[in-house]
């Protein structure tokens, strides 16, 4: 896979590029917003397959990276972008999800210390899936819990809902909770039933439906 990597701190960029290359990806490194847009929108012979983008980039050091990601996805709907940030904000998560399409991820930079979580996230995003940082999901769940909109769920179902919202497949949820995959399938069916969300067999639609429910 050809991945555009936008990160202005050399140490971090270098580390990420190594991780990606070790995994067999081709990496295009950029260190500022305008260069990122050029790399993604030039439309040359060597099209990128996905982008890993830091929210804060030069020259403005505000949300340059996020704006570029939104811009690219606006012009190339569904283009896989994994956004990394030193902090996660519900507002930015909302903006990334607003299009209602998959192929988008939003993770804390901390997560890259777990190579498997980072590479797995990138794989999911590249395949058109959705990956949300556990912290974003935790905030959404806390809010919904306080409002009593997920009151009917058992604690186990709540755990499953949280992991599902992060973008994990049944298999991954089962592995994390140390239960069988069929048990997870039963839980998800219950959750969809209790929350009144239309069930969907397709992974990404399911994630988006859950996120849409939590963001109401």
């Amino acid at each position, binding site marked *: 896979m050809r991945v555009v990597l936008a990160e202005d701190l050399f140490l971090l960029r270098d580390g990420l590029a190594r991780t990606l290359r070790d995994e067999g990806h081709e990496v295009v490194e950029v260190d500022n917003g305008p260069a990122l847009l050029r790399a993604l929108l030039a439309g040359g012979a060597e099209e990128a397959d996905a982008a890993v983008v830091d929210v804060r980039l030069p020259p403005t050091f505000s949300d340059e990276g996020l704006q570029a990601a939104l811009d690219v996805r606006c012009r190339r709907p569904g283009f896989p972008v994994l956004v990394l940030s030193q*902090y996660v904000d519900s*507002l930015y998560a909302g903006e990334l999800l607003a299009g209602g399409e998959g192929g988008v991820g939003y993770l804390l930079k901390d997560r890259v*210390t777990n190579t498997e979580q980072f590479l797995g996230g990138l794989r999911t995003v590249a395949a058109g899936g959705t990956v949300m940082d556990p912290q974003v999901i935790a905030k959404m769940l*806390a809010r919904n819990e306080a409002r009593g909109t997920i009151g009917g769920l058992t604690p186990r179902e709540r755990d499953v809902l949280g992991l599902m919202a992060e973008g994990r497949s049944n298999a991954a949820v089962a592995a994390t909770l140390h239960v069988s995959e069929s048990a997870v399938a039963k839980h998800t069916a219950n959750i969809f039933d209790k929350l009144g969300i239309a069930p969907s067999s397709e992974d990404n639609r399911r994630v988006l439906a859950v996120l849409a429910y939590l963001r109401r």
Partner: protein
Amino acid sequence: MPAVRRARPAAALVDCTVTSLHAAAAGFAGVAVTFALLLLPLGVGLPLLSRAARFLRARSDAARSRTARRSGTPLTEPDPLPVEEGAGTRRRAHLILTDQGFWRDLEWAWLEPWAGGLLVGLPPALVVYGASGVPLQPLLWWFIDRDSYAFFPVHSTTMMWVSMAFGLAVTAAGVLAAPVAVSLHDRWSRVLLVAPRNTRLERRVVRLSDTRAQALDTQAAELRRIERDLHDGAQARLVALGMTLDRATRLLDSDPERARELLADVGRSSQQALADLRDLVHGIHPPVLADRGLGDAVRSLAMDSFLDVHVEVGLRGRLPSPVEAAVYFGVSEALANAAKHSGACEVRITLRHEAELLRVTVTDDGRGGADPALGTGLSGVRRRLDGFDGTLAVTSPPGGPTSVVLEVPCASS
């Protein structure tokens, strides 16, 4: 000049009449004070002066509050007349004579009856004169040989009609002039009654040095907090992390299994250290605020709140960053209070920046009755706003709604 609200003619006529009586009272007070002043060399003026000055101050205070009430903008009051416990009459007179506000009051007392009183007295006089002429003229000229009204003689039916029409016109002019007279009088009073420039400047200096000292204190306390947080948080975790790494390295050959566990610990600790740092940064200056400004930062707060929060943003451009931060934490505190204490379901937040004034209101639909003394959170915000001449006001009648208003004068860029 502050915008002066025009009253309705009928109310304005009453205002005019009352104000002209007050003007007469002011004149009387002025005469009394002058009388006391003239008697000073004889000694009897000494006790008279302080009484007369106090009477005069009561008149001018009343005039100030009337003007403020009518125009909707408060006037800066002069310092109260100096009082000294147990001072003799001579000392008291001396204190009064050296008080700037006293001389200003006296100036007003002499000018008010002539300029102010005549101004507001005119419309009622016109109305009385006009309105009394209209019913009287048809009768009077029958009985009085050389009847005249205004400037013309009335001795025929035609002239009678003319005089009645004239009477109506004069009445109308009086009625229409009343609101104008009231508003002119308010402006005039404002010029005369506002505290002397020196007093205003002195107060400003006192306030500035107070708020500056406070701002420096707050800043120092904030730095101490950050230092402590770093010391007890991230720094301590990094030290522990280094020690665990060292142990893991030593165990690498002898007990690889234990070493693996320790390394997993190191991973968790580093995550925790990052989380600590993130919280600390958020407490200093939330990143979304730095990236997007106040409007989006408040929207982000709204998204994370348990309540239904509606945000209306009327801001163009960015505001000064310290103002943004202070107001952000104010809104955050108000929202947290609404969630904790008010029992509200919905909160409405509006942000406006007009005429160099940032005005943010947070209103909930809860049960009200919030403590007017404020919690520690909001009084901290108020102290912070003080540094920008900003204000924070809480209104919370029992039964609700509670509304928190933050105002900060500032320019946007």
